[in-house]
């Protein structure tokens, strides 16, 4: 279903502000018989819809919901760390009792440079997957009403905020069947950074932060880019990459808003023609004798595992 509803966003004119009292909230309710995707909403500079990877929610299993955002050419929305400006896309859920939605499992971002400002986000056709835990006592034959309130900021040079409520009515059943869009969820998983066994540690070197990554095949470092999930640690500019003793060294400028070194921070490393990887860089003292750093061997993955859902993957 491709029903389009005009979304009344706020228009911010070049010099004159057209102040609308508040953004209009639209509700796109799925029509009977079109349960697997809510109506696509056309908003300012993008269209957005709520999709799911399965035709049936199976009790006790995890299904994947997704916010599908199609951007107008040259417009982008933001990653969990938006960079120098911007705002990450957010979604809040209203679910039947016992159902639980997780966090967005973010695909690796792209870098957008507007003059000297760096932003991290997405353009083109984007799917932001969110795991949905279906309770074991959900009743087969019943219908689960899923409601999402999505908020985003879409920018080219100028920015327009958007907010929309999206709903889906999904049948609860005993067997999962992949939905038409299941393939897109598979593609989305491939766009997520891979969590691996790589080791990374970080050191403060005056106004710079050096990160050493070991065990990852990052080639000669050409075309490598790095994105910190947590803001206020490293500057958002591209790090200087070099190879040293078999490890890849990333030299970042410190963020203007750095106050003190956290225990660790997470980096997404994007490589040309290969899947991005995610490493946790553990801060160690420049003089390791003087303190007891957290073991750099400990790389936990707090992102949801990129596991296929209940049998729906083709």
């Amino acid at each position: 279903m491709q029903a389009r509803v005009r979304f009344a966003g706020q228009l911010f004119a070049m010099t004159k502000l057209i102040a609308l009292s508040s953004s209009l909230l639209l509700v796109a309710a799925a029509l009977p018989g079109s349960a697997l995707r809510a109506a696509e909403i056309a908003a300012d500079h993008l269209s957005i819809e709520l999709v799911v990877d399965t035709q049936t929610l199976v009790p006790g299993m995890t299904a994947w919901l997704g916010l599908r955002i199609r951007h107008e050419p040259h417009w982008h929305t933001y990653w969990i760390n938006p960079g120098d400006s911007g705002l990450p896309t957010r979604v809040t859920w209203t679910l039947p009792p016992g159902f639980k939605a997780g966090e967005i499992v973010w695909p690796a971002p792209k870098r957008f440079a507007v003059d000297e400002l760096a932003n991290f986000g997405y353009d083109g056709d984007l799917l932001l997957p969110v795991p949905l835990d279906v309770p074991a006592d959900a009743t087969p034959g019943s219908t689960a009403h899923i409601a999402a309130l999505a908020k985003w900021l879409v920018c080219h040079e100028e920015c327009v905020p958007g907010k929309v409520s999206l709903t889906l009515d999904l049948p609860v059943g005993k067997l999962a069947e992949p939905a038409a869009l299941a393939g897109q969820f598979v593609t989305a998983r491939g766009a997520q950074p891979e969590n691996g066994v790589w080791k990374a540690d970080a050191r403060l070197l005056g106004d710079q932060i050096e990160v050493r990554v070991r065990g990852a095949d990052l080639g000669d470092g050409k075309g490598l880019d790095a994105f910190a999930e947590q803001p206020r640690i490293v500057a958002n500019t591209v790090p200087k990459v070099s190879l040293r003793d078999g490890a890849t060294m990333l030299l970042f400028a410190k963020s203007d808003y750095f106050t003190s070194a956290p225990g660790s921070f997470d980096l997404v490393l994007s490589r040309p023609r290969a899947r991005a990887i995610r490493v946790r860089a553990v801060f160690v003292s420049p003089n390791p004798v003087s303190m007891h750093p957290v073991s750099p061997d400990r790389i936990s993955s707090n992102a949801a595992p990129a596991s296929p859902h209940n049998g729906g993957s083709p």
Partner: protein
Amino acid sequence: MKLSLTLAATLFATQAFAAATVGAPAPDFSLTDSNGKTQTLSQYTGKTVVLEWNNPGCPFVHKHYASGNIPKQQAAATADGVVWLTINSGAPGKQGHLDSAGAKAFVAQYHASPSAYLFDGNGKVGRLYGAKTTPHMYVIDGGGTLRYMGGIDSIPSTDEDDLAKATQYVPQALAELKAGKPVTVATSAPYGCGVKYGP
């Protein structure tokens, strides 16, 4: 401003930000305001000064003006003897760039009361301070030391509904400075639209 910071930034960016540093002297500047008057930071020695980066076309700025949040902060601060300088670093032809009449109309529309509305069309002062977003806020004490830089408040959003729950960092810093206390939140992540610098 530390020279070392300048060098580090130069290494990594084609057009480097030379960020101001909390606890260090705030860099002096000279800009023309909407009345055609020259405004310098150094002329306000002895007074607390707030710098606010502004772009009237930015939805984040809209949130804090249409809700009355920034105008209210301006009124309270200036009534208390604080100098509040609103700075527009939007380059000519970019969103939010204003002329004198446009700046006056903007101020009037929102019943705002900055001490002055300053133009920085070539972005020199914005870059000197490392201003990245609108709004982006700085508080300088009477001795010329930068005491706060960062966001307008603690909840990055364009939603007016979030204002009630957010900590407003500038009034907090001003109250603490007035009481002779340390500024508890001296930096925070600035949030908003990117400053529309020219090349």
